[in-house]
């Protein structure tokens, strides 16, 4: 059995972790009261831990047990300040790692974090380093969430620096999810957040299940690590469930790779480095020839493609995980972040100058009473 550690760091990470816990109670159909009469059912031994410096963020979680919520005491959050976040992590490192250590050994850890927030973006690189240092054989996958572009310059700045640090740590790879990209799924931001969180949670659990299941065609942790080590070690996930009108497995595989079903905007045909296709469905839908043809087609562009087939009653479900050989969208983010930072810097300089000019009026004067 696979030992999986799911760490949700910061508000975004916490919420995605909470969505995973909710999924473990039965998914979207689970009642809000399910936690009172059900036990979370993970496909493997999954330990979850929500880490945050803001107590209020932890309190908002609904499906995560209290013991799985770790408050790093730093008043009420780090205020999107990564430096403060880093300092808070270092001051509480032993406590944080002690909490993780209590949960035993793990084969793989998912660090789910927003790249733009304060706690998540600052804690995650340091946390991954600590995990790698403490657990020698652990595979660490970062699930990094890119912010809405209009959320502000600090978030863009944080995303930029955080991504760079995440790329520099010794993790197996990064699975990207772009809020800006997925915003299209819902009209307003609040419901978009919930939908994105649930979507990421479903795909991660599907992935964990596929790594720890008896399969017709096996994909395991090693294959996953190989995929994540490909290209930029930055990847994303696509998902598609066939509808009753079209149960073609080949179409389902191709649909899972379409941009509309990805967490991050990518052109699989052009950008994919390595891929893993996990297929689940009733035996009658699992036409091996069709699967092979679809995989061969993907292989032609993506290099190596691992495929795993799980026989499970239901319509075909496809999870595609792939790493990117190039990430042009990231460049756009960085450019946008740089502009924003530049504007921020100029704005601050102007403001300072204005303030200095104002102070100049009283430069040679003294207070008279």
């Amino acid at each position: 059995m696979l030992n999986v550690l799911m760490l949700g760091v910061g508000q975004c990470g916490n919420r995605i972790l909470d969505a995973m816990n909710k999924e473990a109670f039965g998914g979207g159909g689970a009642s809000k009261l399910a936690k009172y009469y059900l036990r979370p059912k993970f496909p493997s031994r999954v330990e979850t831990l929500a880490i945050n410096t803001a107590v209020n963020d932890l309190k908002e979680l609904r499906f995560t047990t209290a013991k799985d919520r770790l408050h790093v005491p730093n008043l009420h959050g780090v205020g999107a300040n990564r430096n403060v976040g880093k300092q808070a992590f270092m001051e509480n490192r032993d406590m944080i790692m002690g909490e993780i250590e209590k949960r035993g050994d793990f084969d793989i850890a998912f660090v789910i974090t927003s790249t733009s927030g304060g706690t998540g973006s600052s804690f995650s690189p340091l946390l991954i380093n600590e995990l790698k240092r403490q657990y020698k054989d652990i595979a660490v996958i970062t699930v990094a969430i890119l912010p809405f572009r209009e959320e502000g310059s600090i978030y863009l700045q944080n995303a930029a620096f955080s991504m760079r640090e995440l790329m520099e740590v010794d993790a197996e790879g990064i699975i990207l999810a772009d809020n800006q990209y997925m915003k299209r799924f819902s009209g307003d931001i609040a419901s978009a957040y919930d939908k994105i969180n649930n979507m990421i949670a479903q795909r991660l659990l599907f992935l964990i299940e596929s790594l720890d299941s008896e399969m017709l065609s096996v994909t395991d942790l090693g294959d996953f690590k190989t995929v994540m080590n490909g290209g930029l070690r930055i990847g994303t996930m696509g998902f598609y469930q066939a509808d009753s009108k079209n149960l073609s497995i080949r179409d389902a595989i191709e649909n899972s790779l379409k941009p509309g079903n990805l967490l991050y905007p990518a052109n699989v045909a052009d950008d994919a480095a390595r891929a893993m296709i996990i297929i689940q469905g009733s035996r009658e839908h699992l036409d091996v020839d069709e699967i092979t043809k679809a995989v061969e087609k993907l292989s032609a562009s993506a290099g190596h493609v691992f495929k795993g087939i799980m026989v499970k009653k239901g319509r075909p479900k496809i999870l595609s995980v792939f790493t990117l050989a190039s990430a042009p969208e990231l460049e756009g983010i960085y450019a946008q972040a740089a502009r924003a930072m530049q504007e921020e810097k100029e704005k601050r300089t102007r403001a300072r100058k204005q303030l200095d000019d104002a102070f100049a009026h009283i430069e040679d004067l003294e207070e008279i009473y």
Partner: protein
Amino acid sequence: MKASSYRLGLICLLLYVLLIGSACAAESDEEDEDEITFRDFSLNIGDRVDLDDYQMELIEIQSLRDGLVVMRVSRVGGSLDEQRALLLDSPNNFDGGAEKGGVTITITDIFDEQSARVRLEYEQKLGTPRKRASDRPAAMPEKPELLVQKSFDRNEMHVGDEVKVTITIKNTGTGTANDIDVQDIPPLPEFTYIAGYPPKIKETLDSGQSDSAVYILNAAREGSVQIPAVVVSYADSKKNSKSNSSEPFSIIIRPKSKADLVINVEDTPPLVLDEEGLLNISISNQGSASATRIEATGEVSPSDGLEIKGLDKSFFEIPPGDAANFSARISGHKRGIYTIRLKVSYDDGDGSVIREATSRAVVLKREYKYQYLLVIIPIIIVSAWIYRRHREYKY
């Protein structure tokens, strides 16, 4: 001189008066001595009346009924010695009767067989009669006296009941009663006789003896019945006829006695499923006759779900005022309300009668002593579980 002549004249007048007086008195005495007088005497047998040289003795009361009394009249010297039966109220002359210097004797009354009133008429010159009581002890008179009594063995009875009538005759007198004849009025319309009628009593009963006769009647018609007296007639040793009768009395004949069975079936307390209970039944006879050949049979409605053992019973007899009690075991196998109908047939003395009674039995679901815990414990467990989960998720 004049005075002495006056005195002499007065003396002469007195002497004359005395002489005249004494002459008249002598004449009068002569007339008185010839006058007839009488005197009554009550005499017992043996008593004697002496008058001059006459002796009159009561010898016997020969017949009280015929008024015959025997007297002996004699004269000292033997010139008269006659014993004669004197008829009541008939003067009997001896020596020519009182008018001729003899005596006339009349029996004016006979008191009993031992004594009588005797009137003696005589001339006054014979002197004053004197009664001489008899020195002989008075002979015990032979006087039978029969007491008769008629009795029923009960004063109240029912139509159809047998009643025993006893006629008792007892001679409480001093002589033998002969020719005893009992006159009992034949059975009244209210009775039919069964045996022993007419009553047979001995024809002769000595003093102190008694005899009785019993006959049996059957009460035939209800109502209050005046029982007439029984009359006994008899004669003493002198053939004097006598009779006596009993006191009349009344009795009540009630309607024919019947048995009346009342069935009381106690309602059983509610039974729990498969639990046994007792159904107590009492059949009491509130009638006035015994109920016989009593058969009790029961049936349950609805027929399945309630089992009854021992409801069918039979009894030979239940006397009036008595009761037969028994219990039936009941056990319920299906919850519900059951009706138990008990039918009792019996002979009430006038024919076959059927009585019915019903009872109700309720079979409840099995009751568990701490059944409420089945609700409370799960609620506690669920509450504890929810609280635990709440604590688990509460941050």
